[in-house]
């Protein structure tokens, strides 16, 4: 036990004295959460739109006022002809066109959107339709109809009423950061000892090989606890994402996920011989699936079946589902039984494989 503690102390000295490692461990999580929270966002804010107004009465004026009042839209120009609007669309100056025909003609208000980015277009259409159809001036004028869509569904957004991107990204970023710190840092840490030759000296000592592995992983597990807390604090107070469910539960499932990542790191360290190789393998084999196949950026349901199948072995997928269930929906422990079970199984399986694979000799 004394050996073990001494080893962990040595590992911490190493982490704290190497500026690069410190930056990766403590600064990158904060940068990522701010980056995903603010810069990389799919939310719609102040989209420019134009109005083609043949009506020229208080109805259009009122509509423009109400669209402007929302934070989604901003009036770019009132155009005189459809051609002019089309030019603006082409130049990318506007994203949406609202046309109000003369009252004598059929009272249909048309909405056209630039669908180059289909997700954005759908959102714009929804927001605009909602605003226009619920505005009192339209409701009081039975002759006015909206062209898109024919039937207005009643929309009720559950759990995330403002449709904030952060609600989706915070669990994703947590999955990403824990994977980065636990897997990448552990594998690089072990491989560094191999590369610098210190592993040779450690192996020729009474210190059991299995303890070398455990002692190597422990500091990173402790650091990931700090990171979990930092991320949760940042997302709660900076991004305004509430923790609806139990904090203890959220914390436990995060530790479980951190363990899975640690084991993956150990596994990589048994494959890679150089620090660069370890970095590359953790980058390609772990980070990319976390970003692309975990449902963090792209919905898994829309993927071809083979990728959906593959997504099942990405631990981040299960972790993100569990975090969303606890953090955003506030569900109790029973709701994440399946996810935690799968993560637990992965942790056990990977531990057995990497301990089996760990070489007690150099070759």
């Amino acid at each position, binding site marked *: 036990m004394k050996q073990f503690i001494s080893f962990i102390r040595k590992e911490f000295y190493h982490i704290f004295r190497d500026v690069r490692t410190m930056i990766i461990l403590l600064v990158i999580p904060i940068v990522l959460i701010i980056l995903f929270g603010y810069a990389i966002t799919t939310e719609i804010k102040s989209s420019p739109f134009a109005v083609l107004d043949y009506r020229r009465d208080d109805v259009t004026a009122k509509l423009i006022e109400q669209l402007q009042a929302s934070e989604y839209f901003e009036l770019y120009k009132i155009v005189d002809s459809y051609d002019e609007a089309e030019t603006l669309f082409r130049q990318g100056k506007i994203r949406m066109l609202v046309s109000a025909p003369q009252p004598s003609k059929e009272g249909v208000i048309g909405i056209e959107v630039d669908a180059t980015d289909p997700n954005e277009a759908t959102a714009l259409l929804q927001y605009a339709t909602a605003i226009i159809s619920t505005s009192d001036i339209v409701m009081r004028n039975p002759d006015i109809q909206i062209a898109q869509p024919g039937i207005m569904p009643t929309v009720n957004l559950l759990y995330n009423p403002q449709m904030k991107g952060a609600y989706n990204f915070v669990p994703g970023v947590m999955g990403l950061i824990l994977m980065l710190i636990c897997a990448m840092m552990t594998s690089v840490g072990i491989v560094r000892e191999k590369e*610098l030759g210190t592993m040779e000296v450690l192996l*020729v000592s009474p210190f059991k090989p299995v303890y070398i592995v455990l002692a190597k992983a422990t500091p990173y597990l402790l650091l990931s606890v700090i990171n979990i807390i930092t991320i949760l604090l940042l997302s709660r107070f900076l991004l305004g994402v509430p923790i609806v469910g139990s904090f203890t539960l959220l914390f436990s499932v995060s530790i479980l996920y951190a363990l899975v990542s640690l084991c993956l790191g150990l596994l990589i360290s048994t494959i890679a011989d150089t620090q660069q190789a370890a970095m590359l393998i953790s980058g390609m084999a772990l980070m990319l699936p976390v970003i692309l196949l975990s449902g963090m950026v792209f919905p898994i349901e829309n993927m071809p079946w083979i990728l959906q199948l593959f997504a099942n072995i990405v631990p981040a997928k299960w972790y993100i589902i569990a975090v969303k269930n606890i953090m955003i929906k506030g569900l109790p422990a029973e709701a994440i039984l399946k996810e935690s079970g799968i993560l637990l199984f992965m942790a056990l399986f990977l531990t057995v494989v990497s301990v089996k694979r760990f070489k007690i*000799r150099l070759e």
Partner: protein
Amino acid sequence: MLGVQIAHITKTYRDIQALHDVSLSIGEGELFGLIGPDGAGKTTLFRILTTLILPDGGSASVCGLDVVKDWKEIRKRVGYMPGRFSLYQYLSVEENLTFFATVFHTTVKENYDLIRDIYVQIETFKKRRAGKLSGGMKQKLALCCALIHRPDVLFLDEPTTGVDPVSRVEFWNILDRLKKQGITILVSTPYMDEASRCDRISLMRSGKCLSIDTPDNIRKSFKKPLLAVQADNMYTLLRDVRKWTGTYSCYAFGDSHHLTLKDDTSNTGMLKSYLEGKGYHKILIKAIEPSVEDCFMELGDNV
């Protein structure tokens, strides 16, 4: 006879034969040197003996323990200093030593008397990080770390490579003192001049142990007459001496060429007139005692 016993060890890496039927017997408390150039198989042999790699064939034992079967026990009883610097660069001298002491279930205090002679030389820098030490100091620290648990057998893989001549002499003095403490020491070096500091040596080349004996006996085994030859143009001299009928072999050795004669029928006078005929000036020829390096070159010819 415990110490280190090696019997018919072979080891092949893909298509390179690193060790070829190596047999050695090293007694308890002996200071044994493996002398040979890079790629002779010294490191491979060390790694087999320290249980870091498995031999392809043959068997070996350290302190009476089998290197394959009893690897756990061997790892508790030997001290190993690899060829390249293998301590933690980010830890200070003191922290490195304490760390290795703890790993080996001991304390610096307990075995301080063993390392005191060496440690006092680096103690002034005990707060300095190991990565910032000079080459000689690094090796002294590494030796301290390998000794801290009072091992029965000490394996030192090229401990003086990259160390200045003064520190090299100091290092060998330290090994002498350790030997007096009863520790069996197996040391490898590419420097032939260090061979005389060992009790016995083995000359290694291309994975083979060529000759195993005391440095003196190895030198005595050199039977042919040996001459040191100097002249004004050393470069062409080597070529011309090799062409001479009385020459068995000739190699460049620092400021002179060492010439082995075929037999006693040729002599200095004949060589001198041969070289004068070739137009050399300032010719200097003298008979010399063979060094370990001469024996090594001679053995190399017979491989």
